[in-house]
């Protein structure tokens, strides 16, 4: 009876104590996993989250990197809106993307289908040979391509001259330079894309393809009606990385074309690099990184929306 009467007063304290004990028990119980995953979150906070915030403050200042910084509010962003070099680099990346990504993705799909064929021997060897450029330093690869694509004495033009083709200004003309850059990128990334598609193909049940074949579908029909629709997740993954990768290119244009001719092959990251490290405009470079990131996020979301919208009828949820 007495115990019963005392309970209402003691309850909040007991509950409080109980809650604290539960928290301690929970911490004890989950201490191991939290400690195991801690390094990532600490490093991410210090070297990525904090800099992103710090960058906001940098982008509101005019600063050479040394001495006092001058607060300019949105001045950097206002300048950036009218910066033809920066928006030109966005356009360059967009053009470059359109030049090489559709061709490369299609080629990767076809190659993966060929590699996936049941009769094919030495699949591992072919895959390795096509993949090889991907582990090469892009600085080294860029120089070799520059050597081979030299207008006057490069190997490509010397080879083409046997067929009576007059010298092509591979690196000296705006459009040819973009195409050359695209060639280097296809060389470097075709194997990676092919292996992604191949991994996707291996998840398609072979009975599906057999059934289609029995029904009289030819290779092109199977490719268009079965392979491509079923590989949608892999295509989405590969194209998303191609978008991010193309706008973030640096090494390839830096080595192969040095951004030229007349700035036709600069990319947003190239511009961030030159304004920060060559012209020492740190605040401006920070503002540029923000806008570049915003553009990438918008493009990626748009691409997800576009590709998920045109899901074939009956397959959607």
């Amino acid at each position, binding site marked *: 009876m007495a115990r019963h009467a005392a309970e209402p007063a003691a309850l909040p304290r007991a509950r409080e104590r109980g809650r604290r004990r539960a928290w301690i028990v*929970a911490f004890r119980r989950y201490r*191991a996993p939290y*400690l*195991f*995953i801690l390094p*990532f*979150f600490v*490093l*991410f906070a210090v*070297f990525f989250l904090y*800099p*992103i915030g710090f*960058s906001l403050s*940098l982008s509101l200042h005019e600063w050479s*990197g040394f001495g006092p910084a001058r607060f300019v509010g949105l001045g950097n962003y206002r300048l950036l809106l009218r910066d033809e070099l920066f928006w030109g680099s966005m356009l360059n990346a967009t053009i470059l993307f359109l030049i090489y990504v559709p061709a490369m993705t299609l080629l990767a799909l076809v*190659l993966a289908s*060929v590699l996936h*064929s049941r009769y094919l021997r030495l699949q*591992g060897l*072919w*895959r390795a*040979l096509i*993949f*090889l*450029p991907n*582990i*090469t*330093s892009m*600085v*080294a690869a860029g*120089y*070799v*391509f520059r*050597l*081979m694509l*030299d207008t006057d004495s490069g*190997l490509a033009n010397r080879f083409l001259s046997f067929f009576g083709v007059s010298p092509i200004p591979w690196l000296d003309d705006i459009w040819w330079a973009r195409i050359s850059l695209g060639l280097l990128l296809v*060389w470097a990334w075709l194997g*990676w894309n092919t*292996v992604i598609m191949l*991994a996707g193909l*291996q998840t398609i049940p072979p009975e599906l393809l057999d059934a289609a074949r029995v029904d009289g579908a030819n*290779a092109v029909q199977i490719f268009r009606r079965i392979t491509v629709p079923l590989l949608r997740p*892999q295509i989405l993954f*590969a194209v998303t990385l191609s978008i*991010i990768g193309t706008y*973030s290119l*640096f*090494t390839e244009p*830096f080595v192969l074309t040095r951004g030229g001719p007349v700035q036709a092959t600069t990319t947003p*990251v190239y511009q*961030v*690099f030159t304004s*920060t490290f060559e012209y020492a405009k740190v605040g401006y*470079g*920070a503002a540029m*990184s923000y806008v*570049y*990131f915003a553009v*990438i996020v918008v493009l990626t979301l748009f691409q997800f929306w576009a590709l998920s919208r045109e899901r074939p009828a009956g397959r959607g949820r």
Partner: protein
Amino acid sequence: MTAVRVRRSTLVKAASYLALAAISALMLFPFAWMLASSFKPFTEIFAGRSFLPEQPTLANYASLFQQSDALRKVWNSFYVAALYTALAVFLCAMGGYGFAKFRFPGRGVLFGFLLATMAVPFAVVMVPLFIMMRNWFHWIDTPWPLIVPWAANAFGIFFMRQYMLSIPDDMLDAARVDGASELRIFLRLVLPVSRPGLASLAILFFVLKWNDFLWPLAVLRSDEVQTVPVMLASLQGPPGRTAFDVLMAGSVVSVLPMLLLFLLLQRHLVVGLTAGAVRE
């Protein structure tokens, strides 16, 4: 009718092999040209008429190792890549184990956050990170800016988690019943059984770090701390007379170790570089 079908399928086969051979040749050609050119004198690189060097010379390599101190740069690259690989593989294994084999409050949210961070390109933080490295950490011209920020990274943790999901819980519980501490279980049990996964990740990290260019170019300012790709970029000389002779020798030095690594361990590498494409 069967004859027609047989002939047609032979034709398709032949075409497939032909296409694969042609593409492989195109992929390999730049390596061959790089190697051949590295043994040619400067004038022959441009005016030569044969694929193989007419007057083979080691002068390009001699100049690379004597004037540019390439051996030191190879060592710098190796040092950065090896140190990074050792540290990152260990920390990523820890993170992967935490996410794969424990249930804890917030796990789903934290793992989703980790995956989302993979979509943030490095260039977004390059400028502020450079200022931090220079003004606060004083890490310019040291290997640390190349190593520490990525020592526990989202991709590696994701990769190791996928691998460690298949470790049987019974094995871990048995060790717990025997009174082993969580750290001891991780070091003595989890790491040894994950060896193949760790190897794949290690090779992958090593190659990526060996070839890294943009960030090393920003933070490695003096000559003697440069890595091989940064050395190559500084070798090119004045516009108009690019030193392609020495550059080709340098490119071979940069590419060859990765090529050998790839030929020995290509299955590991391809698996690592393309992980994440197929989600079960």
